[in-house]
Structure formats: C-alpha cells, structure tokens
C-alpha cells in the first residue's frame, strides 16, 4: 500500500466517430444550386445587354467618374471626421454655449435629408448672392461649383454623423484614464489628444469604416447637380443610346470594387488601433483551419477503440 501513485502509461488517443453534419451538407448543396441557377439566368439574360456592359466597363469617362467619386469620398470623409471630432468635443464641453451650438448643428444636419442639403448648397446664391463683406465679397456661384457644393454638402452632413460616433468613442473610454491623466498634471486638451482620443479610435474605427462605405454610395446623389462622378457619367452614356440598365450595371461593378478596397483598408486600420490589446495580433488557427479541424483530429488509422 504505497501512498505515492505510480506513473500511469498514457493510453492511445481517443478516436471517436465525428458527428455527421448531414444537414449542413444538404443545405450547402441547396444554396449552391440556387445561386448557380440564379447566376445562369442573369448571365444569359438578353435584356441586360452584357456586350454593352463589357463595352463601357473600362470606358475613360466611367473611370474618370470613379476617380471623382473616390476623391469626393476621401475628401469629404477626412474633412467630415475632423469636423466630427470638433463637434464631439464641443458637445462634451463644460461650456454651455459650445454644447448648445454643437447640439443645434447635429439636430439640423442629421434632421434633413442629404439630398436636400446637396440641392440647398448648390443653390446657395438664392439666399446669399454674394459671399463676404462689401468689396471683399465674391459671387457665390463662381465660388461654389457643382464639385464645391458637393464637397460642402457631404462634409457638413458627414460631420454631424461622425460627431455622434466620436462622442460614443470618447464616452467609451474609462473615466479612470482621464483621472490618471489629470492626476499627472495633463491639461484637458492634452488628455483628449494623447490619452482619450487614441483609445476612442478602437471604438470609432468600425462605424467610421461603415460611414466611408456609405459615403461612397451617397456620392451618387450628386447626379442631381450634375457633378461628374461615377453614377452621373453612367447616366449620361445610358441616356445617349438608351442603354440605361447596362450602364447601371457598369456603375454597380465599380461601386463594388471600390467598396471592397475600402473594406480591406478598414480591417488594416482596426488592427493598428487595437495595438496593445488582444485584438491587435491574431492568434490561433484561422477560419479555414478551424473548419477542417474536425478532420485533422481524426487519426489516419480509424477504427473504433
């Protein structure tokens, strides 16, 4: 009767028959079949005039329109984010004037459709024929072209939505961070810039990425003021020879391409701002590996234990 338990010999590893995922395979097959049928129907549909789609897919006017779309998206998002940060900080300020002005701005620009805002800025000259004071004024219309009105409308509108996203991000940062920074003697502005905002970015980037993707498509509304972006240019070609639908498909293609690129950029950015947390570097097997993990665990010999 010894008190010490002897070392045990390690038995053969467990070889269990895996669960049959018949249901999964059947539904997968169904989905593939439906998609294939749909795909075939679309590919062979004459009304879609695929030859026309091919003809204009890389048309220089379409490509230029896509470039303009990207330019407008990038510019208005950058400016909109800056504006949003300013508005968010104002909204959280101790100063009641700043708080109210910010709240009022948000109320107006989130409360009116962006299409209406675009038309308003384009026709600003109706309200203010000249901008400026006395001899230092300029003719409104010469300052605000279609592109200018577009940028104004998109930036000011986006600023309002970004303000709420940034505010949410700022509020998500633990109060203790601000206290620690203040306790060290950092002023409010420094604390916001160096401590709170960088941490808020983790919460801000995903919905912001969403906003960028949305903005990319919102630019298509600029067709109402004839801005030369992707949708307008597709529209122009389509009206010429009544190839409206195929040109819409061309526009869709490029919107999809641009959206995909943006999504990739977003995931890179998320990684960067998650530096220092568990989301910063991916660990463990990827999605594909996990899907076949069940297979890998099965031993080649097989057979029941």
């Amino acid at each position, binding site marked *: 009767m010894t008190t010490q338990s002897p070392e045990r010999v390690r038995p053969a590893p467990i070889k269990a028959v895996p669960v049959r995922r018949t249901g999964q395979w059947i539904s997968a097959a169904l989905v593939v079949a439906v998609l294939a049928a749909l795909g075939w129907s679309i590919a062979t549909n004459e009304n879609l005039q695929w030859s026309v789609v091919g003809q204009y897919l890389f048309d220089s006017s379409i490509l230029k329109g896509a470039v303009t779309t990207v330019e407008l998206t990038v510019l208005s998002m950058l400016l909109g984010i800056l504006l949003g940060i300013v508005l968010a900080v104002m909204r959280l300020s101790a100063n009641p004037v700043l708080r109210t002005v910010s709240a009022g701005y948000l109320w107006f620009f989130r409360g009116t459709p962006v299409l209406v805002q675009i038309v308003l800025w384009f026709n600003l*000259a109706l309200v203010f024929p000249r901008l400026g004071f006395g001899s230092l004024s300029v003719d409104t219309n010469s300052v605000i072209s279609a592109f200018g009105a577009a940028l104004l409308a998109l930036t000011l509108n986006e600023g309002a939505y970004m303000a709420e996203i940034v505010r949410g991000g700022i509020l998500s940062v633990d109060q203790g961070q601000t206290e620690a920074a203040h306790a060290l003697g950092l002023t409010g502005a420094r604390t916001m810039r160096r401590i709170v905002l960088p941490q808020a970015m983790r919460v801000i980037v995903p919905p912001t990425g969403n906003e960028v993707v949305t903005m990319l498509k919102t630019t298509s509304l600029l067709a109402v003021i004839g801005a030369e972006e992707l949708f307008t240019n597709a529209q122009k070609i389509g009206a010429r020879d009544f190839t409206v639908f195929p040109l819409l498909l061309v526009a869709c293609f490029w919107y999809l391409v641009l959206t995909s690129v943006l999504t990739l950029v977003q995931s890179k950015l998320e990684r960067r701002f998650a530096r220092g947390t568990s989301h910063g570097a991916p660990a463990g097997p990827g999605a594909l590996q996990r899907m076949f993990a069940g297979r890998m665990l099965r031993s080649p010999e097989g057979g029941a234990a």
Partner: protein
Amino acid sequence: MTRTTRSRRLAWLAAAAAASTLLTACGGSSDAGDTSAPVAEQTMDQQLHDMLPAGIQSAGKLSIGTEALYPPFESFAEDNKTIVGLDPDIAHAVGQLLGVDVEFTHTAFDGLLTALDGGRFDLVAAAVTDTKDREKQYDFVDYFLTGQAIVVKKGNPEGIHGVTDLCGKPVAVLKASTQEKLLGQFNDDECSGNPIEIGSFQNDKDALLQVQSGRDVASFTQDAVGAYNSATIGGGNQFELANTEALLPTPVGMVFQKEDSQLRDAVQAALEKLIANGTYQEILTKYQLTSGVVDSITVNGATA
C-alpha cells in the same frame, strides 16, 4: 404677331404625321440624319452684340443650363463631355452672332429653374415648354413648336390611341415637366373617376425604361423626343408613337429671369437673324425636327 391657333394646329398635325411616319419608316440603327454635320459659322453682328447687357459683354460668355439626357435636343457625345443636339447648335450659333462664348452646364431637369433663379446660369436651354403658369415667373423666348406624344411598346400591345385610353393605367413621365402637369390635368377632366397612375422620373430615359420593362403602359413626352426615340432605339423596333393626332401643341423656349429682359431681347434678335439667314432651318433639318419650325421668334407665346 397673330396667327390662328386652329390653322397652326392643322399644319402642325400634317407635319407631325409626315415626320413620324418618315422617322419610323427609316428603321435605321443609328441617329436619324447626319447629326455630326457642322452648322454654318456665323459672323458677329456688332449691333446684336451691343444689345447685350454690360455684364455679359465684359464676361464674354453666356452661361447656359441644360439637362443633356434628352436627345435630339441635348445629349452627351461619345466623349461624355461635349453636349450636342438641337439646343447646343442653336445656342452656339446665337453666341457667334452675339460675339460671346457659350458654356453649357448639365444638371438635373427639376433643378434647372432654381439654379437659374440663383444666378448660376444666364439662361436655360433645355427644350423647356412655355406655359402660362411658368410665364408668371420667367420669360420665354420661343424658338420651336412641340406637341405631346404617347410612346408605347412596338406593336402597341395595350391598344392605346389617345389620351382617354390612358385613363386608369400607369404612365411614366419626366419629373417637373409640362407633360407631368398635363397628365394631372387629364385626371381632372378626361380621366376623372378613373385617373391615370402618374409615375414621375428623374429623366426622360428613366421614364422610357418603365415602358420597356412593362411597369408603365406608356410614357408621355415631347413629340419630337418621342419620335426620335421611337425611330432610333433598337433600330426603331422597340417603341412607337401611339397617337396619330396632334396633342396639345405648345411652344418651346429658352428661359430667362424676369429681370434679364435686356439679355432676352438680344437673344430674341439673334434668333430672328438665324431664321432670316436660313441657319435656323438648316439646324432643324439636320435633326429632322422641321415639324417644329416657327416663322418668327416670340416672347411668352404660350396659350395654355
């Protein structure tokens, strides 16, 4: 200048019938006629130039607003930048006579007049029909006579022959156009009790698309445009005009703000000269739109 409406209508009817049968009989695959042929260059007329307001003279250019999704009046050329069509040709000829450059800007149709109010354009040339209502706010220099047309699928499957056949059916139309207004009026008169379902669209081609897809039984548009589309799209085999009789002829004019009467008069005079020297006829012939020819250029000549 007086002319009896009735005789004018009859002449127009004959011309329209002839024109539409001619166009539909063509059956060619591309644009009717040689629309790339250049128009005779005009030399500047000093007298006309001096009629221009000082601001335009010093600017040296006329800024014109249009919606270039409306061939044969205005559309984009292959380069998708140059605007071509009846209106650009006429406007460039006018500009040459007046000794100023002409700059066309494209924007959505229902935004044109607002932009004119805001001073973004000096005038609007977009095949805008002149109506008494619009004349309350703007001045029109009428240079073309149009009628309305009902465009249906080739073969006229729904058997539409006139306005009364549209009652109770869905019809597509350009948003903020006179045609849209007219459909509304039909619903008060001919179709009261069984109204037309009016579908308004951003541009005329979008409206036409609804006829092709079957969502709407017809599109209600300007006669010249309807005839052009019926003749050119799908080699003339996709659409046809349903009406054989003239429908409500109305003048088409360039639109000016009320306070720009000086510019308006200068443009009117220039257009008169184009009629006198035959260029006007030349341009209309080029686009096979002689059905809309007018004898003289009137201001605010709407009758309805």
